[in-house]
C-alpha cells in the first residue's frame, strides 16, 4: 500500500460531475474528490481487506445475536420501545442492502492486520464515490501508472443491482427512496434508486418530510395518498425514533419493509465495539474497547455511542495533550477504543495524510473499497475522498 501523487485529469470537476458527483469541492475550496493522489495496493493486500470485511461481518452478526439473546439493549441506549421491532426484524430477516466498515491500515508492510474503527451499518454515504466515480477515474488513467490491466476493489455497482433483483419478489412496489434535501444525501439516494431501477424495480423518490401518517388507516402515505409498503430511507433509525412518527414506525413495523432494517441500530452504534472485543478478545481485526472508561489503556479514542462526522471525539496519548473535537453529543454515553497502529502517508508537500479505508458490504459480502483521507487523525467533514487501484 502506497500513496502515489498524480496530476489530476484536465477538467476533473466536469468529469466527476458528468458521472454524478457535484459535491466535489469543500466549502473551504479544497477538493473533496482528490485525484491529485491515489492509493496503490497489491492484489494480496486487497485480498486481506476483503477477508477482513467478511470476517468483521460474521463477527458483527454474531454480536447482534448476542445482544438480542442477552438483552443488552440498555448498554447501547436503545429505546425500550424499539426492542420488539428489532427482535422481530432480526427473526424475520427483512431486506438489508448495504453497510460500510471503516478500518485503519497501513498495508501489509506494517505487520498489522486491518483494524475496525466503526461500522456504518445504517446510513453509509460516500457510496457513489466508491462505486461509480473512482471506477470512471481508473478508466481514464494511463497504463504508465496503473499497468495494462488495472484493477480496483469495487464491484459495488454490480452487487447492488444483483441484490435488488434478489429482493424483487419480497418488496411491494413502488419502492420509495426518501432522504433529506442535501446534495450528498439526495445523490446517494438517487444512485441507490438507479441500481434498483436497473434491476427492474418500480421506484419513486421523495423527501423524508413528505412521508405522511394517516391515523385512520394506521399507515404511511406518500404525497399522493398511496400507502407506502417498501421504503429505503437514508436517515438514521435513532433520529426516526426520536421524531413524531417514530412510534408509528414501530407500531406498524411488521407491515412496512424499511431499508435498512431496524436491527441495524445494534451495529451502527459504537457500543458494538466493546461487545465485539468482549466476544472476540485480541482478534487481529479488532481494537481493544470498553464502555465508559479506558481501563488500563493509555492511548485511546473516546467517542459517543452515536456520533457523526468526528464530533465529540477525544484522542488521548501519554505525554501529549489530548485532542478534542466539538459537537452536540456532550453528556452522552461514551466508549473508549485503543488507538490503531499508525497509518500515515505523506503527501507531495511532506504533510501527513491519515487514510481511513471504507470496506463496502452488499448482501453480507465485502465488495468494495473507498478511502477517505484527513490532515489529522480524526476523520471529519473536511476529509477528502482519494481513489485507489491495485496491481
Amino acid at each position, binding site marked *: 500500500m502506497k500513496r502515489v501523487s498524480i496530476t489530476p485529469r484536465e477538467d476533473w470537476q466536469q468529469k466527476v*460531475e458528468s458521472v454524478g458527483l457535484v459535491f466535489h469541492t469543500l466549502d473551504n475550496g479544497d477538493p473533496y474528490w482528490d485525484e491529485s493522489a491515489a492509493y496503490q495496493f497489491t492484489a494480496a493486500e486487497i485480498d486481506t481487506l476483503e477477508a477482513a470485511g467478511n470476517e468483521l461481518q460474521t463477527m458483527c452478526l454474531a454480536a447482534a445475536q448476542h445482544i438480542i439473546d442477552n438483552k443488552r439493549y440498555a448498554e447501547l441506549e436503545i429505546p425500550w420501545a424499539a426492542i420488539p421491532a428489532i427482535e422481530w426484524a432480526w427473526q424475520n430477516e427483512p431486506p438489508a442492502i448495504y453497510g460500510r466498515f471503516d478500518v485503519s491500515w497501513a498495508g501489509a508492510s506494517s505487520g498489522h492486520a486491518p483494524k475496525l474503527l466503526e461500522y456504518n451499518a445504517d446510513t453509509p454515504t460516500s457510496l457513489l464515490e466508491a462505486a461509480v466515480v473512482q471506477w470512471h477515474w*481508473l478508466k481514464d488513467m494511463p497504463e504508465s501508472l496503473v499497468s495494462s490491466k488495472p484493477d480496483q476493489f469495487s*464491484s459495488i*455497482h454490480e452487487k447492488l443491482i444483483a441484490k435488488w433483483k434478489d429482493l424483487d419478489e419480497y418488496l411491494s412496489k413502488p419502492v420509495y427512496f426518501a432522504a*433529506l434535501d442535501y446534495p450528498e444525501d439526495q445523490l446517494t439516494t438517487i444512485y441507490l434508486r438507479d441500481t434498483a431501477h436497473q434491476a427492474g424495480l418500480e421506484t419513486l423518490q421523495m423527501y423524508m*418530510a413528505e*412521508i405522511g401518517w394517516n391515523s385512520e388507516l394506521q399507515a404511511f402515505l406518500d404525497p399522493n395518498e398511496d400507502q407506502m409498503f417498501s421504503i429505503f430511507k437514508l436517515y*438514521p433509525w435513532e433520529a426516526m425514533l*426520536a421524531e413524531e*412518527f417514530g412510534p408509528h414506525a414501530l407500531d406498524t413495523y411488521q407491515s412496512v419493509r424499511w431499508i435498512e432494517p431496524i436491527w441495524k441500530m445494534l451495529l451502527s452504534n459504537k457500543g458494538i465495539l466493546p461487545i465485539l472485543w468482549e466476544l472476540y478478545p485480541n482478534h487481529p481485526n479488532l481494537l481493544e474497547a470498553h464502555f465508559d472508561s479506558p481501563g488500563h489503556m493509555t492511548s485511546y479514542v473516546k467517542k459517543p455511542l452515536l456520533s457523526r462526522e468526528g464530533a465529540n471525539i477525544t484522542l488521548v496519548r501519554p505525554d501529549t495533550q489530548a485532542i478534542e473535537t466539538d459537537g452536540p453529543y456532550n453528556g452522552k454515553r461514551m466508549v473508549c477504543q485503543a488507538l490503531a497502529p499508525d497509518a500515515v502517508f505523506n503527501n507531495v508537500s511532506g504533510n501527513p495524510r491519515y487514510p481511513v479505508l471504507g470496506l463496502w458490504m452488499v448482501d453480507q459480502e465485502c465488495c468494495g473499497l473507498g478511502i477517505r483521507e484527513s490532515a489529522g487523525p480524526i476523520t471529519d467533514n473536511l476529509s477528502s475522498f482519494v481513489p485507489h487501484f491495485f496491481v
Partner: protein
Amino acid sequence: MKRSTQVAAPLLAAAAMAMLAGCKGPEMQRCVDENNKVVDDSFCHQPGQQRPDGHGGFIFVPMPYHYYYGGYGGYGLGSVVGGGSYTPTPGRAYSTTSRGGFGSSFSGGHGEGGGEGAGE
C-alpha cells in the same frame, strides 16, 4: 477482476446535471402519470371520474396524475422525471394525513462526506 465490468448510472448522472443547472425546487412543475411520464397539464386539473359501481350508484375514481416538482426530466411530454418530489394532487382530500413527522433532526451541519445531511 474485482471491479465492476461496466458502471452506468443514468438516473444519477441526470440528477447531478439537473442540480448543477439549478433545476430544483418548485420552479419546475410538470404533470406526470403513474409511471412518472410527463403528460399534458390538463390531466392534473381533473380530480377524477364518476364510474358506475354496478349497483345502480357511482364510485369516485381518482385520476392517476399528479404534479412533480424539481429533479430531472424537463418538461417534454413523454419524458420520464425523477430526482425531485411530488405534492398532493389538487382537489383531493387529505385531512387525516399529517406530514413532517420525519426529517427534523438534521437542520444542517450534520453528516459526513460532503458535509451536510443524515448519512455518514
